[in-house]
């Protein structure tokens, strides 16, 4: 394997800027001074490794963490984690969290007047397998209001946190659902100008992972930054 010397910079328009005034929380939190371009050193080219010792067996199934099944439409969310060269990213930690079917989080600051569900925490995690695949069983999250602007509603979404092989590949994102009419009005979804990049945040209904008589499957493939490598010696 060639030596990794760094990770590639994003294609124009595919990653958000810090200041995005339509999402009002960015205004007091986005840096105002220029960022300093960081060469990727050993500190950025390495990263923490997690294993099965860090997890519990049922961590990937959000419908079986309590005494009874949660209210809502059971779904399977799965996909492949790969890099920009299409190479699978195996054995890395994925964490997810989401609202319940009524659009409510069991969190002290969530004031939305919708019911909590004693059988749903909305938190899961798993490791990708040797081919970069992951799979969660959960319920379809509800939409909910937020106070970003008048009559603001978040489209249904699941938060994803992914480590990958290095400090520089750390990624937090959100997965959306196909055909959601709220996407067009959501400042977070619309934070990048590249429409194709936005649309890659939308999962697809997936017959292959759908389990008959049990749960619909949604496929969400995730791509991490590709590595820059020292060129291989040309074969004679």
């Amino acid at each position, binding site marked *: 394997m060639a030596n990794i010397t760094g990770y590639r910079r994003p294609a124009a328009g595919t990653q958000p800027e810090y200041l995005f005034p339509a999402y009002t*929380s960015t205004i007091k939190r986005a840096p105002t001074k220029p960022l*300093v371009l960081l060469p990727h*050193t050993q500190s950025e080219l390495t990263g923490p490794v997690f294993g099965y010792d860090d997890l519990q067996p049922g961590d990937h199934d959000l419908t079986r963490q309590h005494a009874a099944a949660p209210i809502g439409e059971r779904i399977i969310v799965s996909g492949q984690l790969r890099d920009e060269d299409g190479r699978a990213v195996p054995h890395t930690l994925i964490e997810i969290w989401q609202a319940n079917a009524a659009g409510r989080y069991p969190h002290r600051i969530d004031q939305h007047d919708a019911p909590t569900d004693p059988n749903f925490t909305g938190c899961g995690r798993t490791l990708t397998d040797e081919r970069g695949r992951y799979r969660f069983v959960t319920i379809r999250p509800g939409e909910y209001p937020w106070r970003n602007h008048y009559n603001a509603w978040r489209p249904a979404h699941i*938060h994803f946190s992914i480590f990958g092989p290095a*400090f520089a590949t750390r990624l937090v994102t959100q997965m959306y659902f196909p055909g959601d009419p709220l996407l067009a009005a959501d400042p977070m979804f619309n934070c990048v100008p590249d429409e194709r990049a936005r649309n890659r945040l939308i999962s697809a209904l997936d017959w292959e992972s759908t389990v008959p008589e049990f749960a619909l499957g949604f496929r969400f493939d995730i791509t991490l930054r590709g590595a820059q490598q020292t060129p291989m010696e040309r074969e004679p």
Partner: protein
Amino acid sequence: MSLQATTSQTVGPFLHIGLTWLIIEDLAPAGVAGERVSVDGRVLDGDGAPVNDALLEIWQAGADGKFGEKSFRGFGRSATDDQGRFRFRTIKPGRVAGPGGKLQAPHIAVNVFMRGLLKQLVTRIYFPQDPANAEDPVLALVPSERRATLIAKPAGAGALEWNVLLQGHDETVFFDC
């Protein structure tokens, strides 16, 4: 095959539900070799108000300058409290290679996540009064008048203070990583 990296999105205000199971504020339990150090600080927004919904992750080498050893994973995660405070108990890392093989000064890599950040902020913690800071190749890239924001301040025996100021005159240096 050429794909594009998935677009980053904010952790939002409810990050604790998914991420606090892995809080690791004490990276170096008894038995880990190295000089013990605590790093305490606050995260403040553009109004100087505490950020009570931030999450910091740190990544560092062991005292010998090696990453990800069995005895010392080198990963930490802390969520801020109502006063915007975070805390880590760790060891001072050894020196690791930088650009062109030149050694860097001891430092801790930091990712900062919060509502209002559509992608994480990347910064570093350096150690005060370390002579290697003067020759560090990354600090050398930072305008001299801003370097102090990356260097923790002594706060008693084995204790350091280092704050994250998101905006303002003393805004912390953030990197395009």
